[in-house]
């Protein structure tokens, strides 16, 4: 295996990784919860991915790229932790631990985009990540586990809890 020269490496990177820029931005946007931070994260992650590109041996360039994006996002979130405490859904407060999915309120199917985005943003970062990857990017549990660096079982329970919380948030919005 000879070393890729720069122009080849760039072309190869643009071909394999850049098609996933939308997915990367969407994930970062839901994790960071504002445009500017999300753009910064994706720019930084793209550059890091490019530098590590030669270490990419796998077959799933989307999962590989998204894991770099999520790591960059979580680092950035830790750096400006200030906003974290504010909005995240409090399970204790809402009693979501005990309440099952069938909370009794039928969900309005015609949720508008803004409401759905705002609801997802109320979840904790780990739950935002699981929901975004599963529902919006259509990743398998295995892919989500690889991207997030946790076992598949954890992904399964995160998704179950995140959906229970979303159910509560969305049904509250619509019964107000």
């Amino acid at each position: 295996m000879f070393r890729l020269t720069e122009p080849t490496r760039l072309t190869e990177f643009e071909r394999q990784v850049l098609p996933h820029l939308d997915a990367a931005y969407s994930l970062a946007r839901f994790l960071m919860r504002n445009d500017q931070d999300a753009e910064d994260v994706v720019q930084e992650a793209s550059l890091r991915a490019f530098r590590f590109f030669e270490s990419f041996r796998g077959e799933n360039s989307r999962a590989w790229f998204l894991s770099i994006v999520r790591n960059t996002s979580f680092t950035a979130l830790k750096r400006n932790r200030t906003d974290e405490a504010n909005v995240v859904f409090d399970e204790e407060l809402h009693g979501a631990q005990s309440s099952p999915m069938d909370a009794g309120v039928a969900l309005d199917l015609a949720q508008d985009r803004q409401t759905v985005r705002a609801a997802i943003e109320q979840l904790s970062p780990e739950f935002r990540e699981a929901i975004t990857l599963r529902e919006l990017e259509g990743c398998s549990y295995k892919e989500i586990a690889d991207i997030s660096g946790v076992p598949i079982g954890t992904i399964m329970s995160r998704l179950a809890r995140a959906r229970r919380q979303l159910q509560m948030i969305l049904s509250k919005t619509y019964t107000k």
Partner: protein
Amino acid sequence: MSIDHSQMQELLHAYVDGEVDLVTGREIEQHLRSCEGCRRTEQQIRALREALTSNAPAYRAPARLRRNVRADLRREAKESRVSWPGLVFAAGAVCAVLFFAAALFQNTRAPRNSIADQVIGNHVRSLLATHLVDVASSDQHTVKPWFDGKIDFAPSVRDLSSDGFPLAGGRLDYLDGKTVVALVYQRNKHPINLFISPASTNRDTTPALIARRGYSLFHWTYAEMDYWAVSDLNQTELRQFADLIAR
């Protein structure tokens, strides 16, 4: 045979996501038949998923970000050291490729051929990378909505099982710098990739054969959409497929 209620509540999510094995799936189905509570939960999960995805809440990368990323990469690529033996090798390779390309395709239209090569490349990669489909379903009503919000055009998706070309699923792919739809059909274990993207012309054409590297490839334009069908199937059967789709 013993899944307790709280386990079941969690498993239902995996069940709805199509992430449980056959045996567990059968157990869950059996349980659902006798448990109204869990049945309601299952419906709630499906309703929530529908609510989450029906309005395509995913964000799209702004054009400015795209430009910035590309600029960053160019700068980075320029700054990194270039290995001289590699450069010489690459230059040689480029010359060789140009020479053969010139010799082979002198009389043919270049853009279509370069896309044809990409189409074959995409096809081969889709088979190698265990990434043939993102949405696996023979149901056109499952495959078509999956693309909603992911692309800005609406491909027509038809199952051709009755003609011997069952739909296997779909995924997004990348062709000629654009995101395109890839539908996957099966013919006796031979996967067929059908790439669909908006055409630059509104002139309809009939499927035309392009044979490259042992692959058969049909290209046609219909209703302002470009179609590329590629497979290692024989030409006759692939033409039959192309004609069915183009009909």
